[in-house]
């Protein structure tokens, strides 16, 4: 790790000013940034911690309508508090990483990083959530922009994420044996207007909506309806943990499992 300056503002406005500085980078839970700094792969001049801003934390909502999660809310807090509004989201948060990760990592950090194997992007995209920043509101369908990329601009900070509550939803993931990130994960959300399915871990383009599965499930919300359906293996990640064909296959398996779990 190289030397760096560290600031921990207590308001969003202060954070925005700090981030305007040279080589400044926001720090949320640090679950990706800190390891990459330790390996000297990342060398910010100033780290601007977002964890001291009370406005960015917390879970609030309206039963049956929506739940809003502050961007600096830890996975553990989401697991503990979001269940009353959105059980599938709380369940997803409860299964991210291990307790140390869940007590440090935040939803905003996860979304801004957009790791292709992260869990939260699947929930956000399948739920059709809205990402609120210090500048604007962004629909989930517009937010993710490929592996480790989003439409966030320089100095733009996620402040909260608002999820509409579906009639039924569940997340199923298959663990990469070493990292225990999602080798492939599927989040299925059934709304009055139709079913949304988001897949993480599988695609070279990062999280994506599996539209074929959505149309099938919108007609018949059952795993059997998906029999024989797979996304194209082309464009799927292929590495020592699984071929592209295997990941495409897991999209089907995990989506069926998520449908079964959603009930």
């Amino acid at each position: 790790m190289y030397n760096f300056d560290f600031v921990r503002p207590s308001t969003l406005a202060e954070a925005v000013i700090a981030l305007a500085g040279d080589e400044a980078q926001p720090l949320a839970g640090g679950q990706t940034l800190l390891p990459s700094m330790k390996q000297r792969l990342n060398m910010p001049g100033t780290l601007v911690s977002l964890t001291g801003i009370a406005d960015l934390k917390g879970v609030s909502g309206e039963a049956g309508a929506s739940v809003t999660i502050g961007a600096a809310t830890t996975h553990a807090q989401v697991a503990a508090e979001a269940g009353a509004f959105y059980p599938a989201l709380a369940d997803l948060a409860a299964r991210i990483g291990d307790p140390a990760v869940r007590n440090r990592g935040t939803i905003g950090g996860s979304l801004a990083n957009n790791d292709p194997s992260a869990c939260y992007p699947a929930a956000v995209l399948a739920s059709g959530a809205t990402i609120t920043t210090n500048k604007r509101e962004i629909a989930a369908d517009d937010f993710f922009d490929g592996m480790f990329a989003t439409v966030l601009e320089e100095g733009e900070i996620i402040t909260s994420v608002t999820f509409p509550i579906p009639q039924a939803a569940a997340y199923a993931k298959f663990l990469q044996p070493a990292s225990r990130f999602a080798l492939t994960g599927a989040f299925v959300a059934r709304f009055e207007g139709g079913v949304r399915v988001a897949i993480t871990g599988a695609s070279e383009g990062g999280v994506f909506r599996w539209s074929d599965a959505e149309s099938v499930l919108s007609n018949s919300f059952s795993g059997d309806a998906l029999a024989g359906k797979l996304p194209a293996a082309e464009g799927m990640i292929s590495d020592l943990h699984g071929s592209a064909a295997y990941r495409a296959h897991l999209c089907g398996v995990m989506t069926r499992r998520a449908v079964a779990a959603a009930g």
Partner: protein
Amino acid sequence: MPKDGGIGASPKRREDIRFLTGEGVYTDDIQLQGQCFAYFVRSTVAHGTIGTIDTAATEAMPGVLAVFTGEDFKDVGGNPAGWLINSRDGTPMREPKRPVLAHGKVRHVGDAYAAVIAETYAQAKDAAEQLAADSEIEDLPAIVDMAAAVANADNRVHDEIPDNLCFDWGWVEDNRAAVDEAIKNAPHVTTLELVNNRLVPNAMEPRASIGEYFPGTGDYKLTTTSQNPHLHRLLISAFVMGIPENKLTVVAPDVGGGFGSKIYHYGEEALVLAAAKKLKRPVRWTAERSESFLTDAHGRDHVTKIELACEEDGTFIAFRTETLANVGAYLSNFATATPTFLHGTLMAGPYKVPNVYVNLKTVFTNTAPVDAYRGAGRPEATYSLERVIDKMCRELELDPFEVRRKNFITPDMFPYTTPVGLVYDTGDYNATLDKAMEMADVDGFEDRRAESAARGKLRGMGLSTWIEACGIAPSNLVGVLGSRVGLYDAATVRVNATGNISVMTGAHSHGQGHETVFPQIVAEKLGIDPASVEIVHGDTSKIPFGMGSYGSRSLAVAGSAMNNAVDKIIAKGKKIAAHMLEASEDDITFEDGNFAVAGTDKSLSFGEVAFSAYVPHNYPLETLEPGLEETSFYDPGNFTYPAGAYLCEVEVCPETGKVDVVAFYCADDFGNVMNPLIVEGQVHGGVGQGIGQALCEQTTYDADGQLLSASYMDYAMPRADDVPFYQVDYSCNTPCTHNPLGVKGCGEAGAIGSPPAVINAVVDALNSGGFTHITHIDMPVTPSRVWTAMQAQ
């Protein structure tokens, strides 16, 4: 007599209290006045020519005290291979020098070619980064695949070795023609090609070293993560640096796991000593985890074709293997022994197979050096044999249990000379198989399979009947086989004046529990409280010359030395007691901690005799020296031959290919058991590592020689939820016939016997589930590999 602390008792490990409360003292815990820090500049390419290394900018950086490159060590001796192996044509193996720092060429990613010493660790690391930027390394094509390495004479890891071959070994070469003939004429031959996957050792404590130099006396001290401090001293003194042995102390304090990887002397150790002398300050280095992945000696990495010739009823006729064994870029100290005399000699298994021939080519590649890792050669032999037997049973539709029984060497046949050069002294392979089958409720398996099927899972059962040779080793025998060291061990038992005891041993405990089990033996023999016995190990200035701990040898070899030293103590005690009790020495008995005159009520306690030895007022000084301290060196008469039967049950998910090990049964014959709790722990750990190899541990180099699985993000270690609750039994014991404790060794058994049991179970599950085209899947059987195999139908 010690009721709950002697031989056969299971006291909890006394050392665990300090380990579990953070009071252990590991190398990195030792802080010294005036210390400075080394950081190594390591190659980022697998193969390259070292050009100019411009040290000027680095030397000017803050805190930098010294910079070393390969130039500084090009004239010192090389780190040697411990065994000389001859090729089939009689020529000696090719033996390139392993330098302290790479010189001329870098040969694997992580190969250190320079080092920076600075006041702080961060300064050393910053400066090393500068030095890397100022070093010209010209890329050469990487040599990664073994078959390609041997085929390509133009691309060489070592310029003087044209075909990248270290040696081409035949064992036993005289068997070759007869085995070829037997296979040609056999009614049935089963052939299997398999990979024994390369493993990264992953000791919890990374390697670490501190070099010290004392200008006043010219003495050196190396504190390092070693399984065998005397071996380190010998290698550094006699081969690498020429420091006289009596001017070098090597200390291995608490060491957090080795699994073989800390047997060897590494260049970092020589560097911190050289730097300490140059700077006259302590110089320290602790590996980062990434350095451990890239530079600790890896394990296994064999590619084997095995053929099993048999009668139609499964009676074995001959085995033949052809293996390519990777040694990586340089010869680590035991790299040439591991695939040969720890592997080829085991290729008869526990079977009365008439003939066996092993051909093994050892290949240099641009990868990390490969050497002994828990089991060391014996897992490779067991895996090849137990897999090909399983395949043969499937081909001929024979019962795998009955085929083993039909071919087992039986107790009436011992001592039994195998066609591959070992003499098994004792064993009862049917007994352990019976026990395993009873524990596993083999008769109830079909019900369990049906129950799994009802949950959508494919259940399979796999058997492995393994044997190994450990307790290494008889020095005269290994000398004939090419070893450059003896493999005895030593113990000094020092009875102090107040009756408590210090035992200095050449064995080194880095997780094995020596501090608990060795006192049990001494206490049992002397009839005293084990709490009054302390074990001293890991410091060449305190202990007798011993060869350390590996090859499941500590108890069988060092324990035997301890046993014999205690016998000498008792013998001397009898002389002292005879004098004090005014009786003939022949009439003195020693029982329950008391010396007595037979047939009388006259007796002295052990403590009274010990006190007299140090306060010899009433003592036979004319004929007997005072003091009560004895040393014994023990050189074993043979290897020991633990054996056993392992049964594994797995469930395979047909949707994802994920394998769950749901049950694992071990029936082992370790000879006499000193501490059952420790034996069970050793088996649990070994089986855990074997399951890790079978299911998830995957060391992957790409075609450029980059290690893709170089962190825990990609290298999957087995975790608690990957292993079942093991059932372990060690009641079927046939005591070793040639050591005084009748013990065989249990440290590696689990890692040796378990991988084929897992894979046999996976193949069984898949075949029973209708995937009858699957005859084999290479380890690790990751979900992706299993699923891919299922698709090939």
